[in-house]
């Protein structure tokens, strides 16, 4: 047996993009069409398939309060019939080719994603164009989509993790768009009619702010030509710009909210703070801090205490959701209802330790190494590369981002981590949400 010592590499791996396959200006082609559509493409000739993904600047931020879920409903109904194709014709074309396409709405954007064999890329783009530009929202199909959305909301109402997360957002983001679930509520979805969908589509769907990424077994230039062919003539003179985010009102005191869901075996806890925006300068330090707190290895320090030492939960981790606006920085756990108080207490202890003492040098080195080492794995598939490129565009990070990643991670210090942790982990503004029996 060979059991001497484990070869834990002591140095952080170094890489340069062109040698390690990281995307950058050397292999990503980016073009802005005259109507505003931005196209990015990268080839992967090991793959006989292609992935497309992208977004439009149409999101739940524009939903009226009484019709919450409108952006989501609109996105869900795009494929239910267009001026050229009935619902069954759309899916017959896609499914006969083994292709897929889907749309979903978030707070700030409507996203789309699809994949096909390379030979079927034209088909995929044609259907994408058709659904984005010419949806018909047939009345019978609108009702079918409504039934599906309502069924999903009924399922959500019984999902302890989803309900705890919803309650947490309601605590932390009073009178702010982030307090509202993109999929709405039963009563708001029931209120949305076909005219609302048509109006939302008219007001917010358009080429301005649209990004489309193509990755797979095709030359980038050819992929871009195809996108041009399908999308260069799209115009929508009445396309609105969605509202910006209002100022966030911070909590005056720590707040707890409990949602009772009878008949469940397990309760879910979501607790924590308001964190940074993705574009804030401290984001990378916060992301590394979060990795140490509740992700590295088996859920970081949180996992070590709650799962490994105390055996109190199958999952217990921390999560940092930085986006366009300030995201939540949380600890989340699924626990036996009788252990809720103990898990909250242990988590708060860990958070206090985390803010009071700087992390160890080895902990930071480990997390830096993890961030750098996991990049190639996240970029293995076409869809992994496509979502990486989409992120570059969404947060305006620049095509060199992954090539500079090593330096960016390496330069973060223990002091920066400690500062950012103290800045955001405000115990006087902490929220705790519970959902369970």
């Amino acid at each position, binding site marked *: 047996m060979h059991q001497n010592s484990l070869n*834990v590499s002591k140095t952080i791996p170094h890489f340069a993009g062109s040698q390690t396959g990281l995307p950058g200006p050397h292999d990503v082609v980016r073009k802005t069409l005259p109507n505003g559509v931005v196209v990015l493409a990268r080839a992967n000739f090991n793959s006989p*398939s292609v992935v497309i993904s992208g977004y439009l600047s149409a999101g739940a931020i524009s939903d009226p309060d009484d019709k919450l879920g409108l952006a989501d409903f609109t996105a869900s109904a795009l494929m239910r019939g267009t001026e050229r194709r009935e619902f069954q014709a759309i899916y017959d074309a896609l499914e006969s080719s*083994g292709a897929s396409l889907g749309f979903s709405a978030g707070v700030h954007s409507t996203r789309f994603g699809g994949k096909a064999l390379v030979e079927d890329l034209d088909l995929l783009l044609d259907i994408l164009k058709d659904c984005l530009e010419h949806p018909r929202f047939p009345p019978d199909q609108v009702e079918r989509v409504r039934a599906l959305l309502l069924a999903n909301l009924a399922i959500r109402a019984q999902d302890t993790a989803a309900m705890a997360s919803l309650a947490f957002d309601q605590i932390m983001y009073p009178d702010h768009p982030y307090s509202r679930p993109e999929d709405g509520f039963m009563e708001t979805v029931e209120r949305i009619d076909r005219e609302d969908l048509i109006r939302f589509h008219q007001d917010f769907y358009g080429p301005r702010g649209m990004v489309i990424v193509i990755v797979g077994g095709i030359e980038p230039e050819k992929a871009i030509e195809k996108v041009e062919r399908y999308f260069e003539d799209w115009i929508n003179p009445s396309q609105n710009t969605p509202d910006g985010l209002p100022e966030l009102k911070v909590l005056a005191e720590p707040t707890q909210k409990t949602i009772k869901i009878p008949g469940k075996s397990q309760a879910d806890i979501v607790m924590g703070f308001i964190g940074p925006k993705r574009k804030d300068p401290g984001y990378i330090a916060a992301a590394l801090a979060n990795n140490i707190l509740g992700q590295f*290895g*088996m859920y970081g320090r949180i996992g070590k205490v709650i799962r490994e030492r105390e055996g109190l939960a199958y999952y217990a981790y921390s999560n940092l959701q930085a986006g366009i606006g300030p995201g939540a920085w949380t600890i989340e756990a699924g626990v036996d209802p009788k252990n809720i108080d103990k898990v909250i207490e242990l988590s708060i202890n860990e958070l206090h330790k985390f803010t009071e003492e700087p992390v160890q040098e080895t902990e930071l080195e480990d997390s830096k190494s993890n961030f750098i080492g*996991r990049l190639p794995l996240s970029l*293995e598939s076409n869809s992994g590369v496509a979502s990486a490129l989409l992120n570059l565009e969404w947060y305006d990070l620049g095509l060199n981002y992954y090539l500079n990643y090593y330096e960016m991670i390496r330069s973060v210090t223990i002091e920066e981590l400690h500062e950012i942790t103290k800045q955001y982990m405000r115990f006087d503004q902490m929220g705790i949400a519970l959902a369970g029996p």
Partner: protein
Amino acid sequence: MNDAITQFQLNNGLSVLLKEMHTSPLISHWIWYRVGSRDEKPGVTGISHWTEHMLFKGTPSFPAGELDRAISRLGGLWNAMTYLDWTAYFEVLPADQSDLALQLEADRMRNAIINEKEVETERTVIISERQGNENDPLFLLQEEIQAAAFRVHPYHHVIIGDMADLYSIQCQDLLYHYQTYYTPNNAVLAIAGDFDTNEMAAKVMKYFEEIPPGAAPPRLVRPEPEQPGERRVMVEGPEETTYLQIAYHTPSANDPNFYPLSVLDSLLTGPSSLNLFSGGISNKTSRLYRALVERELAVGVSGGLSATIDPYLYTITVTVPPGKKAEQSLPVIDEEIARLQESPPQMEELTRAVKQARALFAYGSESISNQAFWLGFSEMFAHYEWFESYLNRLAEVTPQDIQRVAQTYLRPQNRVVGEYRSTVNQKG
């Protein structure tokens, strides 16, 4: 570059499959043990899954935290999964770090720390995992359906095990399970990725060949007798959504009828994927989607045919929205099945199903981990050629084959019909 698969066996019985591919600077390393919930007697149900958890507790040479740290520092992934027939452990690592995976799996094949203290800490973690499963109505329904479908065969119980056993399993039970089944002669090592086959073969020998073989592990042989008539189960709970699940007894993955059944599933509920690491496609043109969802009796339908050693189940699951009843869907499903039993489908439908399978296969093959998964997975119930020939075997299926398997397997006498019914709706 060597896209072919190299297979060999060490003197201790360890079976090895290597697939060299240079698409990403990664390796995906899997070790599969031929043990799963099918090997568990009442009293120790869930022990295969629990043993899988214990293998993350470290060894005397490599304490748990150190291994976790080493893999995470490399940005790697490691995890494990327990199934009806097998337990598999995998690591995905940068290509130049393959020694770590080989070293740690060779070590924990014999030296995992399984002691009273660790067992007790893990007991509550596993109970918590089961409680999380119990929050899902489909888990509760699946558990009842398996129990009804298998009166004799150990596929009777769910993989995570019965709660009673999770309270009563002891350290010595876990040790026995580990020592009995975790032997090189009961394992398959499958590695895919960016390596040189000869060099990798030499490394495999270096780390694994000194492990002594164990006795041939015992096998529970309790074949399920033919079901004498339709069985029905009902689960009630607070969910507003109703679920209908129909499970038909189907043959082993090794049976020639498995292929026509795969195509049949594709026709009825849309193509299923054998990929572990990439999703499938929609099923809105499948026969049952059109029959159920377009008539507004359901909001979704899916099908699942599992590749298993012994005959298992083909399951159709229908999500029934509030306001509709499961009993409205069942006759519609029966009508669609009768259509296939009475007349064979058009050849075009079969051709389409094969194209869908090809596309899904292409998406999955991007991932080195899928490639390694396929190698080991197919060895569990057949041979890796099962997977290599899978698409061709699907293409050979004829419309008459579909009709025949529909007649043979999709009979009411051969099924369990289960319903999750809302107590909320009943009151309302």
